[in-house]
């Protein structure tokens, strides 16, 4: 992201703490596609993902004073809020009604190359990376990150020992890291 940013993370955080609307707009412009992408991947449906995104930015705005830089970068913090909000939304009663529809959608979305419109990653990036990521490694990342499954659930679902789940995850990330470097 570096090159296009005109604010440093510290400036962003200070601006938010100072209730600076311009900073908030900037934050939205630069981070909403990534956060919306995560929300969409989790909930699998545009209207619900939009609701999640809106809620996420209100949370960021409200809770910026609780951001702890020692635990990770601002973007990581925002991603965590997004993922948790989206998974909460997915699990909330509001979405139980059309759970099945979402599941179908998310399965369809899972391996469907999407248009990535973000800054430094060209729109072919996703399909390139996803294609090269081995299927079982893709699945483990998807299940853990986007579907919020615990390692027990993953072990059960993939029919592998619990101890193997972490090793698989590590291998998946190592492969992912290699692929991301090639972009």
């Amino acid at each position, binding site marked *: 992201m570096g090159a296009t940013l005109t604010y440093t993370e510290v400036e962003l955080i200070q601006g938010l703490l100072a209730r600076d609307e311009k900073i908030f707009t900037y934050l939205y412009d630069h981070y909403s596609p990534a956060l919306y992408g995560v929300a969409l991947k989790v909930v699998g449906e545009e209207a619900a993902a939009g609701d999640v995104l809106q809620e996420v930015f209100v949370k960021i705005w409200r809770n910026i004073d609780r*951001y702890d830089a020692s635990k990770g970068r601002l973007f990581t913090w925002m991603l965590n809020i997004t993922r948790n909000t989206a998974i909460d939304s997915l699990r909330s009663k509001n979405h139980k009604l059309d759970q099945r529809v979402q599941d179908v959608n998310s399965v369809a979305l899972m391996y469907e190359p999407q248009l990535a419109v973000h800054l430094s990653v060209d729109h072919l990036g996703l399909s390139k990376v996803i294609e090269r990521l081995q299927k079982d490694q893709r699945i483990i990342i998807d299940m853990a*990150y986007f579907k919020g499954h615990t390692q027990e659930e993953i072990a059960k679902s993939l029919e592998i020992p619990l101890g193997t789940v972490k090793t698989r995850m590590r291998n998946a990330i190592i492969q992912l890291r290699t692929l991301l470097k090639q972009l």
Partner: protein
Amino acid sequence: MDVQRYISSGILESYVFGMLPETEQTEVEKLVSQYPDVKAALDLLQQDKERFVQLYAVAPPTGIKNRLTEIIRQENTEDGNKLLPEELRAPMNGAKHNGHQVPGKKKPDIEKETPIKYLATPKSSSDRLWKYLTAAIVVLLIGSVVMNFFFFQKSTDYKSRYKSLIATKEKLDAEKEHQALTSSKETTAIPVDPDPLSNPDFKWTQLQGGGAYAGKSVSVGWNAQTQAVYLQAKIMPLPPAGKQFQLWAIVNKKLVDAGVFDTGAELTQELQHMKAVAVAQGFAITLEKKGGSTEPSMNQVCMSAKVTK
């Protein structure tokens, strides 16, 4: 602690991608604060994740940005804040706990967040309406399928019951017809000739036996108008086995079959209905094989008589 081994165990990856249970998360966070190498590895993984999720980046629908700007603007004034739904107002003091926790939740920060309900956007509320409509339609469809099945069963049931009714009716009709036929035989045979013995239309001819049949007698009543013929085997022996007596009408010196008849003690007073005879100058009786013959056996004539004019 063997830091390198810990780093290569995969626990940090699992932590970053949010699949660890709460206890293991806390443990990771503790070690991260203790070991700079672990912290460095974690930072790298978080950057991997940041790059990874950006692969999924999608431009959000327009309109969300304007709503958000409105929300934070209104929030900045006290009046504006009061205009918002309660759950969206700026937090006054102390944060409530978020309803339920997500396994793999990463930061304690998030747990402290003020719960914020969805902002009902026009899109999502119309979506909800559609959801309910869809649900209602699905329910109706299922209901209709069930009803179809039910009524189909019923109609099949009615069909089979209808068929069995038809069958019963046909059977009854057949029986009725049969009865009508038999009764018509009886009614046309006897009621037409209520009492041939006292009916003046019947001419009664007494046939007296000769030779082997001397003393035997049969009377034959013939109604020339209705062509009906009755026979009374007054005094006649039983025929030999396999034989039967047969009545013939004498027409122009030829014998015309008028049917076979039975004899015996019980039948002496019985009127036996014979075949119709149109013209007859007289009657004759022969002994024939059982069931009668088409041609009379002229050597077996038992008796004969002319019809009196």
